[in-house]
């Protein structure tokens, strides 16, 4: 601890111990605890206490004081825990009987302050920190803390209850890790008394008829198997599995969610040879209701090593609801395909038809789980892509009311699902996930047909439409190419012809979310297919480009931003509203002007950011209109951006400037500004030309202003840019080698004013030589390091923290005078 902090500490302790002083806020106390943790991790706690006796005095004082706030009491308990985590310091505190007084029955535990949840939480956290060594275990046993922790598991404060559970896990782990670590037998009989006690409590809780108690026990066990990896956990499972079996005998199975979490936690940590565990999992799958079993089945299928029979059973559980839907809606036998085995489950059918919420819940879970499973390498094989596609299409048709099931079950399902947005969204997500695979053309046609139905339907909500667009994009991008031709296949082209009028209509929707989704879809589609003749033809024949351009003036800023991105993308592919024609040569130019206008005048940040991204992309890709006169383009953009209020726009301006620099001077060696190898210097002739160009577009002024930007990311980006420029322009030589004339001196003076916040003065035109000199004269590396520090690194020092806390209560002499 530095001396200044040591000097301030007694005063701070006095403030904390004084109930008349306003208690510092919780954040300060938390920061103080963090600091003490760092100090004790770096050195001896014992030494710390010996050098700063005020700390122990504070702890004693806290015990004596009757009217101290619960926050200070909680703080003291946690502080004591931090000190006692080191065994020698623990002994030191034990000598003074301080620890039993703090954590034993004579302490807050028995007092009125115990009613405050923050004190109970502090007590638990203090013990948690303290319990790091065998002495701590003995102490816990001696002061009866474990029983208190048991009772705190059911604490009305969820934070306290959760912390109590975690503390139990920590103590159990500590006890089992003890001196005999590595030799601890998996056999539970020779476990330490403390561990026996905790496990015994867990066993009792598992037998309890009170569900909250079962839940608590399972939650502790889940954490144990998730965090503790000793051999002893296998013994624990052996000991507890009969209790789990007894839970499974009950109908309904109590605390099923927690049981599933626990079993999955065990399965993740257990060796794959544990047959008993797999049997228990199989048994659990068959005992739980379809809704409860879904998460377990999904968890099992995600396991790396798992018996095939169990995987098959688990997969069957996930497929059941979809199989039931397919069976209920089947027009002809055989539609079930590989799902056939999962069909006909009366329990699943019963759940589906029991009520609307049950049906919706079960289907959404099954669809979500299967969707998540689809891209995983360990997904079941063979993957029933075709029946799953069929099921997704059927569910979507049932939801839209376009399916006409003939069976009674199908009719009831239809009545339940029709118009259900939640299932529609889940099914569309799933259909999108299935686009990673393929299917027979007939079925793919059905997929496109149902997607089109949703995109057309006025009944589709904005969220459903967004999902429908996403799924459509997935399927479109997976469309096969015509053999021997690089263009889109005829089916896709046909679909596009139907899709574009729908997109047109959606771009005119009164709901801005719909317009936005439509534009995002268009952008993505153009990004992938902008070069495909079939797509270009269909798009140019539609009114979509024109509508997109009109949406640049949309009243909703999100839509304007999406329209900017979409028109930028369309323009990149030469697909903008009016194709360049002899009659209207300025059409593309007008888009550039329009985007510049948005950049200069739009009151919202999103469209301006979008414009900058488009411009940067255009410059990077050599967009025709930009490439024609890149210098004028960059000058115009930088001028518009330099005074922008949004730091992201300014940062994007620097990105564009960097692209421009790279185009003038050659690529950077590495994208990392801290790369060891400096970029290669530019040839002198090229450099002189480049510096003149940069001067004309006023890039220096823009970058140097940004160097002192009040937003750190902007300053960092500017620093990187100038470092790159310096490396290209003046890779070596002393700072005074060239042009250290009056020009540089005046620029330096201006920069100092900028740094001081006076940004009004312009920099003036800089000679190339002066630029080089200036770049050399600025300590860019130093600036970069400073900027790399977090913005509050000065204020974050412990000394500052102590001073702030003291100043807050007026305990610092110098702050007394400036109260008024």
């Amino acid at each position, binding site marked *: 601890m530095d001396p200044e902090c040591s000097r301030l500490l007694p005063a701070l302790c006095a403030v904390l111990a004084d109930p008349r002083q306003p208690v510092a806020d919780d954040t300060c106390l938390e920061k103080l605890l963090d600091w003490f943790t760092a100090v004790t991790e770096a050195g001896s706690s014992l030494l710390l206490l010996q050098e700063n006796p005020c700390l122990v005095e504070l702890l004693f004082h806290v015990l004596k004081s009757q009217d101290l706030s619960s926050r200070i009491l909680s703080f003291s308990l946690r502080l004591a825990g931090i000190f006692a985590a080191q065994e020698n310091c623990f002994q030191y505190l034990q000598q003074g009987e301080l620890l039993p007084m703090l954590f034993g029955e004579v302490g807050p535990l028995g007092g009125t302050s115990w009613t405050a949840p923050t004190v109970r939480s502090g007590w638990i956290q203090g013990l948690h920190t303290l319990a790091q060594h065998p002495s701590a275990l003995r102490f816990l046993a001696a002061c009866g803390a474990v029983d208190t922790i048991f009772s705190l598991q059911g604490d009305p404060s969820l934070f306290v209850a959760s912390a109590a559970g975690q503390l139990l896990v920590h103590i159990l782990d500590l006890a089992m890790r003890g001196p005999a670590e590595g030799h601890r037998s998996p056999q539970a009989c020779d476990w330490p008394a403390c561990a026996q006690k905790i496990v015994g409590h867990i066993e009792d809780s598992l037998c309890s008829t009170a569900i909250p108690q079962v839940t608590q026990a399972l939650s502790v066990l889940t954490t144990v198997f998730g965090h503790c990896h000793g051999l002893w956990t296998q013994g624990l499972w052996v000991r507890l599995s009969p209790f789990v079996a007894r839970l499974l005998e009950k109908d309904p199975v109590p605390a099923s969610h927690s049981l599933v979490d626990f079993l999955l936690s065990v399965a993740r940590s257990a060796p794959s040879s544990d047959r008993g565990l797999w049997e228990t999992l199989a048994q659990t799958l068959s005992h739980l209701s379809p809704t409860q079993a879904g998460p377990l089945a999904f968890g099992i299928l995600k396991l790396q090593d798992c018996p095939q029979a169990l995987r098959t059973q688990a997969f069957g559980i996930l497929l059941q609801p979809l199989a039931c839907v397919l069976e209920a809606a089947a027009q002809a036998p055989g539609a079930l395909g590989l799902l056939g085995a999962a069909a006909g489950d009366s329990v699943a059918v019963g759940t589906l038809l029991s009520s609307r919420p049950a049906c919706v819940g079960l289907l959404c879970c099954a669809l979500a789980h299967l969707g998540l499973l689809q891209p995983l390498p360990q997904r079941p094989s063979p993957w029933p892509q075709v029946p799953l596609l069929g099921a997704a299409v059927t569910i979507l048709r049932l939801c839209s009311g376009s399916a006409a099931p003939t069976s009674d079950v199908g009719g009831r399902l239809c009545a339940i699902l029709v118009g259900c947005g939640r299932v529609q969204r889940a099914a569309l997500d799933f259909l999108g996930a299935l686009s990673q695979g393929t299917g027979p053309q007939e079925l793919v046609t059905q997929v496109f047909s149902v997607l089109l139905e949703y995109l057309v339907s*006025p009944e589709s909500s904005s969220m459903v439409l967004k999902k429908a667009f996403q799924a459509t994009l997935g399927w479109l991008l997976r469309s096969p190419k015509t053999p021997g031709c690089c263009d889109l296949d005829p089916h896709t082209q046909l679909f596009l012809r139907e899709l574009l009028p729908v997109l047109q209509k959606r771009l*005119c929707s009164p709901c801005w979310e719909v317009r936005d989704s439509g534009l995002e879809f268009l952008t993505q589609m153009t990004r992938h297919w902008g070069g495909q003749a079939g797509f270009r033809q269909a798009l140019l024949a539609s009114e979509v480009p024109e509508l997109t351009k009109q949406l640049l003036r949309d009243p909703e800023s999100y839509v304007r931003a999406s329209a900017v991105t979409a028109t930028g993308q369309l323009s990149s592919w030469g697909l903008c509203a009016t194709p360049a024609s002899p009659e209207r040569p300025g059409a593309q130019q007008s888009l550039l002007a329009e985007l510049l206008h948005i950049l200069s005048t739009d009151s919202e940040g999103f469209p301006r950011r979008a414009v900058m991204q488009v411009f940067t992309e255009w410059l990077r890709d050599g967009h025709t209109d930009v490439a024609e006169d890149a210098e004028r383009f960059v000058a115009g953009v930088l001028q518009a951006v330099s005074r922008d209020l949004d730091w992201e726009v300014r940062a994007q301006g620097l990105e564009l400037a960097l692209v421009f620099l790279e185009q003038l001077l050659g690529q950077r060696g590495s994208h990392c500004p801290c790369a060891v190898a400096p970029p290669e210097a530019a040839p002198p002739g090229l450099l002189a030309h480049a510096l003149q160009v940069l001067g004309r577009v006023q890039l220096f002024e823009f970058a140097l202003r940004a160097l002192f930007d009040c937003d750190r990311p902007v300053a960092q980006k500017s620093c990187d840019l100038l470092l790159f420029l310096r490396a290209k322009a003046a890779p070596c030589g002393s700072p005074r080698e060239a042009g250290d004339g009056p020009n540089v001196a005046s620029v330096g003076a201006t920069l100092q004013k900028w740094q001081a916040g006076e940004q009004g003065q312009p920099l003036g035109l800089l000679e190339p030589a002066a630029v080089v000199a200036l770049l050399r004269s600025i300590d860019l590396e130093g600036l970069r390091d400073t900027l790399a520090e977090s913005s509050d690194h000065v204020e974050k020092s412990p000394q500052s923290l102590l001073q702030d806390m003291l100043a807050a209560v007026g305990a610092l002499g110098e702050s007394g005078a400036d109260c008024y």
Partner: protein
Amino acid sequence: MSRYPDLCLNLKECVCQEMGTIDPSIFWALLFKGGFYGMKKREVGGKYCLSGHPTLPCNVLKFKSTTIMLDCGLDMTSTLNFLPLPLVQSPRLSNLPGWSLKDGNAFLDKELKECSGHVFVDSVPEFCLPETELIDLSTVDVILISNYHCMMALPYITEHTGFTGTVYATEPSVQIGRLLMEELVNFIERVPKAQSASLWKNKDIQRLLPSPLKDAVEVSTWRRCYTMQEVNSALSKIQLVGYSQKIELFGAVQVTPLSSGYALGSSNWIIQSHYEKVSYVSGSSLLTTHPQPMDQASLKNSDVLILTGLTQIPTANPDGMVGEFCSNLALTVRNGGNVLVPCYPSGVIYDLLECLYQYIDSAGLSSIPFYFISPVANSSLEFSQIFAEWLCHNKQTKVYLPEPPFPHAELIQTNKLKHYPSIHGDFSNDFRQPCVVFTGHPSLRFGDVVHFMELWGKSSLNTVIFTEPDFSYLEALAPYQPLAMKCIYCPIDTRLNFIQVSKLLKEVQPLHVVCPEQYTQPPPAQSHRMDLMIDCQPPAMSYRRAEVLALPFKRRYEKIEIMPELADSLVPMEIKPGVSLATVSAVLHTKDNKHILQPPPRPAQPTGGKKRKRASDDIPDCKVLKPLLSGSIPVEQFVQTLEKHGFSDIKVEDTAKGHIVLLQEAETLIQIEEDSTHIICDNDELLRVRLRDLVLKFLQKF
């Protein structure tokens, strides 16, 4: 012998007779705190269905000796069989070929014209009236109107059936109903048609016609439109009412209008007596549009709920349709096309204008003119702004700012919306394209819309957007085929859908639901959609046109008032806390459906002269009453009492209904049950009387 107090609730049944005296031995009742008696009465309500159209209902309810007509809707779909009435001479329509039979017989070619494979009657359009034969409409006491769309047949009923009763409706319903009628009369009268076709209606001829003329029902009863004179006369019979106002009908029934949330002034009706409640739900909406929200709470505890006027397009969500409307409108106008919106002059148009008010700027349509053409356009727009008390809360609040509740005022102020009585006059000077025109009639058979269909139908740039759900858009378009203009069907029907009905019924829990038969089965085209029908328990009772339905009322009591002097003479005896009993001898006086218990007439005093009274003179007219008993017999104490009185060898057996006390020695049984006690002994009257007296000791007498 023993009678528990609760049993006194089982009133003996008696038939209410005017001015009849009730024999006190058979009439007794529970005295309520307010001094009223309940009396059971046999009466079953009846319902006569005069319209087969579920959203344009016309039903007659016979209830508690009153005859109430519920709504007076006019089915205008019959007009779809007629050729449109063009405002300006249409060569296309006038040159349509006459229709001839398959054998070439052309005797109908003057009456029937053919257009693109469809046959139309070339005559003044006629309407299908409600049934007039099912019940003598002159006996209808009152007509209750639920909204302005459901009163369009009123002149036919009030002016041509001998109706002498009163019509009840809210002010907005009357005022806007008047506008609708005025517009209808105007549309038809301003294009006089010399020709009137009637030959085709001959049943033998009709059979030979192609569909849909062949299948048209009751064509002989179809009538031409009424006149303005008839409209005024009909409307003069209306008495204005406000929401929650209680209106007494002949002392028998009370009717109350409640907000139904569908249109300005739209109402549901509660029709109730003291013991029965019928709710009439017609054209209600739970959506937040411009009218006051629907009052659901007052519909609770109905014996019968008559449910009509649900949405005609249950699969179309109004919000989605409004979105569709806006999108298609914008698309058309952006391409330089015109948009035609056939509509009524009131109702959904207010909401559409409000949506467009918010949408046009965002869609870049600020420079596009919106025209509203109707003989009553001005009145409709102005009326909507003055019925503040009938509007939803948000709009009501605006009035106090003060701001016009509907934003169409601003659209008019800024010249974005212009309204004209017809296409003639100012409109032709101001008209510029592309534009959006709102005009009637939605059937496309008369009104200014006919002109625009003829004008714009040939260009595929233009679009007609159907928003009113009352007419099939395909049938409406039939006489305009072939048509190049785009047609968009966005029916906006804010009335209750089946999900909302299901929730409503769960909420208000009527004992019985009565509805048109169309609501009890899925639509024929979507027979698998079990969600598109009313699902309730017990199943809804359905009706169809020209059907009479007996309504089930479970409770059949009448309220009887007791005269104060008679009440004073009663001596109630509290048999348990809050429940008192008294016997009453009185005369029941019934007049104007009010029943009053009056003191019985005093026996005539002897006129004197006779010195000696006969013994029989002391006996009152009525029989001597045996005292009424109440209370229960505690078996153990009763047995102890028996033992005290010398009975021995007593055995008690428990039975399903009570106990049997067996006096073995005396060979006697005493059966003690919940509502009776029997002493069974063998011809030993003395013993019976002795035992009876012991039993009576445990009971209260009064």
